[in-house]
């Protein structure tokens, strides 16, 4: 396993860094990242697991909702594992890591506190990479119907007859 990971350019330092970062991800093989509890796993075929792990952490840091599981963020960024996006991702992750280095860190994923990662993101937020990822998340994350109940949003209501008999005026604390 170590060899396959090495082949993908993942260094021991990066692996350690990822483990420190959120404790959320484990490299399961050359093409996989997964949650430590095996609640979800994600296969990458074009970009590297390291790049995907970086995108995932970025997504969490841009739109942090502690009650929203990684799996939803993974859905939001999985589209970047594509031929069309690989150059953007490679250049962007390099830009992000360079910004991390400039602020005295080994790389982005190795930064333990969100607050410090946010400072790194702020250094690149005017760029195309950051803005592409951020804008994509607005729909990629918040337009997942499975995410809506976490925020209490009820979605479609016509098929249930609207709210005329289901609490459109049920506020009771005013």
């Amino acid at each position, binding site marked *: 396993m170590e060899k396959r990971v090495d082949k993908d350019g993942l260094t021991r330092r990066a692996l350690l860094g990822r483990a420190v970062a959120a404790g959320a991800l484990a490299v399961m093989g050359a093409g996989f990242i997964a949650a430590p509890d095996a609640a979800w796993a994600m296969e990458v075929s074009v970009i590297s697991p390291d790049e995907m792990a970086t995108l995932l952490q970025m997504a969490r840091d841009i739109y942090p909702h502690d009650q929203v599981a990684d799996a939803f963020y993974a859905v939001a960024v999985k589209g970047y594992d594509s031929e069309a996006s690989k150059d953007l991702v490679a250049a962007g992750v390099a830009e992000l890591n360079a910004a991390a280095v400039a602020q005295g860190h080994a790389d982005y994923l190795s930064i333990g506190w969100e607050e410090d990662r946010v400072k790194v993101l702020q250094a690149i937020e005017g760029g195309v990479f950051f803005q592409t990822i951020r804008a994509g998340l607005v729909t990629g994350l918040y337009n997942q119907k499975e995410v809506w109940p976490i*925020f209490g949003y009820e979605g479609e209501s016509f098929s249930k007859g609207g709210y005329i008999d289901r609490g459109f005026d049920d506020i009771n604390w005013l």
Partner: protein
Amino acid sequence: MATFDLNDDSVVVIIGTGAGGGVLANELAQKGVKVVALEAGGRYLPEDYINDEWESFGQLAWLDARTTSGTWRVAKDFAGLPAWIVKAVGGTTTHWAGASIRFQDHEWKALTTYGTVEGANLLDWPIDAAEMAPWYEKAETKLGVTRTGDRAGLPGNNNYKVFEKGAKALGYKEVHTGRMAINSADYDGRMACQQTGFCFQGCKWGAKWSAAYTDIPAGEATGNLEVRDRAHVARILHNDAGKVSGVEYFDKDGNLQMQKARIVCVAGNSFESPRLLLNSASSMFPDGLANSSGMVGRNYMRHTTGSVYAIFDKPVRMWRGTTMAGIVQDEARHDPSRGFVGGYELETLSLGLPFMAAFLNPGGWGRSFTTALDHYENMAGMWIVGEDMPQLQNGVTLSEAKDQFGLPVANVHFDDHPNDIAMRNHAYKQGIAMYEAVGATRAFPTPPYPSTHNLGTNRMSERPEDGVVNRWGQSHDIANLFVSDGSQFTTGAAENPTLTIVALAIRQADHIASEMSRGNL
């Protein structure tokens, strides 16, 4: 349903089928006038509408290219989307929230009432409240506006109850669930509101008035109206005498067609109508049709808008029920002691989670942003709509960019006037105070969305040198060319514009039909 020959030069051609064009088409058809209505969008009815914000946006919104410039924030956050309006039969009446309020009397005479405002290009309308009163009444009856005639108001939803309590705590008196073109009881063959939400996505019950399923089919039933959907007008043609003679359009298969016309009425909204007049420039009219004043595309107004959302320590669930049935009118008065001329309305508003993420603070990120959304269930919201100043440089010009037919698209330029900014800041303060009076723990003065109230780019004027059309919406330059949408607004007033657009369309139909029968058109 009628069909008319492309060479039939006895027809009135109407471009656009929204609140202006759709109503005008039906009103003329009811009077026996032959009408061909050309609509760039497709036909969608209640069974087609989707209770899903982004999916519905993809179905209904005008997404053809536009460009933007100016210092307004929309140009930065939504550079290709200056407006959130609809491309469909029925136009933006599918999307509108239904708020239907008359102009206040003084708002017809903005220049006289407010005096000269530096940097603003204010003008009095050539018509007034007394002249418009009977047409407003006809419009209210057509739309079934609540709290007019003998029609009851809508019940208040959760979002309204928070809003009302805050308003009353501040001492506001004119607070109610609005005058809405949403049925509070069965009316005109349409059912009552089921408090579904999703008013912006097209009412699946048909409880909200939309031309798509009222005036359009009613006009078609007369046998005098043919609606051609997915017909994108490229150019208005004229003859050697300088009268318009027909229009060229791309049909649904992308083929260029030419429909002859006795009269042409432009009702494509405040972006597409001036764009079309400008794109119709000829050797006789090198600056575009009806543009001897140079006012085509100028004086664009979008209302001074903005929203206030606030979080409470308990659930509100603002998305349940009618999207905009709630209004405070106390600030709509003209009272320069507040630091600005004109006034504004406060109206309840809610967005679903997906659109709240997109519009609460466009471009925003990090915990300041996400902790707001974390409490989405406990959020209440309102929208500000106030009179903005017409300014000469705000408006539509032809862009370098081209659309899918190779036609130059509209570039929309907008800079806030200092009066707009003073009004918006006042409204933010009042809105936040309303919510704080009910115990809000956090409030958000949310910037304007892409515009829905697009006004003024072919404005009405007494004198030909001040505007594009006369008191009937008839162009000063070309007798058989009319403007029939919100672009004819001389000033914007504080009120949501649809009722006034509809009233003007009913009145214009009456005028056109009588002038035709007199042989003047």
